């Protein structure tokens, strides 16, 4: 079993196989299931992700609280008008990340990647780049295994829980995972995947988990949006040959230590940050009939 990103990259490069293949082989070995069963389990995950994205960009989903919903549709309409500032690919990825999180907030069915609150980034980037890269279904499944491999390292060496490590551990991890997997999907090397992960995660360090009213809605949906755009740009930078001065494993370790020193008010308790703003408290009082800080 690989314990860190350096070992993961070494396993891939010494055998001349992609990161996704390292993950698939390890899964087959650890689970004792056949390769076909393992591949099909991921195929099911891919199906759920696609269904959530399609629902989010076509229906005006609304959460029970009314705080989120409908923004993915808005972005799709904006892209169609053609008058955007960034790029259609980037905005498509962003809108599909938003779509997933809006479906999640509405208690719809999603696949956690690595968590539900951060479930938009990984599929958002994949389906946003689908038209451009035109991958086969197996390559899309490979993308999910590659992102899972990097998430596996983060989960075992740091944390993927907002309550333990803040949003950097959730959307931050997802962003790094998506950036690394996108590099592989676009034909980059395992080392470039690691660089993309490092570049993406570095820019998420310190991000706190401060959901308004404790709901996985504000700011989670928009953090997934920006995570998706961060991932695509980080992948482009790595593919351009840019490297991170701080190695990926050390960035992950820094993320872990930052999470440990983060005040509890900023770790999914709805006690600080945006949750504690006047508007945040007002929304909370409106939803629950009472503000959580009065309890």
């Amino acid at each position, binding site marked *: 079993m690989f314990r860190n990103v350096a070992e993961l990259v070494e396993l891939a490069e010494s055998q001349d196989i992609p990161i996704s293949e390292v993950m698939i082989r390890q899964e087959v070995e650890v689970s004792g299931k056949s390769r076909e069963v393992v591949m099909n389990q991921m195929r099911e*995950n891919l199906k759920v992700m696609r269904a959530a994205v399609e629902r989010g960009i076509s229906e005006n989903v609304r959460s029970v609280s009314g705080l989120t919903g409908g923004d993915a549709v808005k972005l799709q309409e904006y892209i169609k008008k053609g008058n955007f500032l960034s790029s259609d690919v980037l905005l498509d990825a962003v809108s599909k990340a938003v779509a997933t999180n809006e479906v999640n*907030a509405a208690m719809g069915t*999603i*696949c956690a990647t690595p968590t539900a609150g951060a479930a938009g980034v990984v599929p958002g980037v994949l389906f946003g780049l689908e038209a451009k890269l035109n991958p086969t279904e197996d390559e899309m499944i490979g993308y999910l295994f590659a992102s899972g491999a990097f998430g596996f390292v983060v989960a*075992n060496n740091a944390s993927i829980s907002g*309550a333990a490590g803040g949003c950097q551990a959730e959307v931050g991890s997802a962003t790094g995972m998506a950036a690394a997997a996108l590099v592989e999907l676009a034909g980059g090397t395992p080392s470039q995947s690691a660089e993309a992960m490092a570049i993406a995660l570095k820019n998420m360090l310190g991000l706190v988990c401060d*959901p308004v009213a404790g709901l996985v809605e504000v700011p989670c949906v928009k953090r997934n949006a920006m995570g998706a755009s961060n991932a695509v740009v980080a992948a482009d930078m790595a593919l351009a040959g840019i490297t991170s001065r701080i190695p990926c494993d050390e960035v992950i370790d820094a993320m872990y230590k930052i999470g440990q020193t983060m005040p509890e008010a900023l770790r999914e308790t709805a006690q600080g940050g945006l949750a504690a703003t006047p508007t945040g408290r007002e929304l909370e009082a409106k939803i629950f009939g009472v503000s959580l800080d009065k309890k």
Partner: protein
Amino acid sequence: MKYRTVFDIIGPIMIGPSSSHTAGAARIGRVARTLFAEKPDRADIYFYGSFAKTYRGHGTDVAIVGGILDFDTFDSRITNALTIAKEEKIDIHFHEEEALTDHPNTAKVVLTKGEVTIELVGISIGGGKIEIIELNGFKLKLSGNHPAILVVHNDRYGVIAGVSNVLAKHEINIGHMEVSRKEKGKEALMVIEVDQNVPNTILKELESLPNIVKVTKIHD
């Protein structure tokens, strides 16, 4: 390593909105139900830390009750779990606790039917993954991801050997095993994670061994 499979990272498929506060809670509830092995009359649910502060917003309450109703994380009936519990005449009580716990997402579930009761403490460690850390006062560490056998027994020499002999005879491999006791010579608990589901006939055979009080299992 805390996480051993890629499907802990890409997965689970679940009803939103939170893997730790919704899917993890559902899994804690479901392990309690599995170990209780029947529908309870009453469920008392104690939330600590982040669970206590944010459970309503995350649907932690409906999810954990969904688990107690034996629903999986992706079962859309979870959203109506409180109503379904009422229809099934399960008396549900939520308790918000102030006490500090080691992990921010901690829940205690007490299921009761007549005189029979089970008390279990679970933590949700991220991405939908859980650990059961206490069962009827015994400290343990159980993921709920692997089939497992739980054996309540008297703390005597030879009991562990007897149990492992039976498993060896049936060619069942032990992946992880823990023994804990509250007091020397009194009741003890063995938690045995195995690689495959164990048929009930083997549980009966284990139960017939000397000094065994009760045998239950968690299936895959």
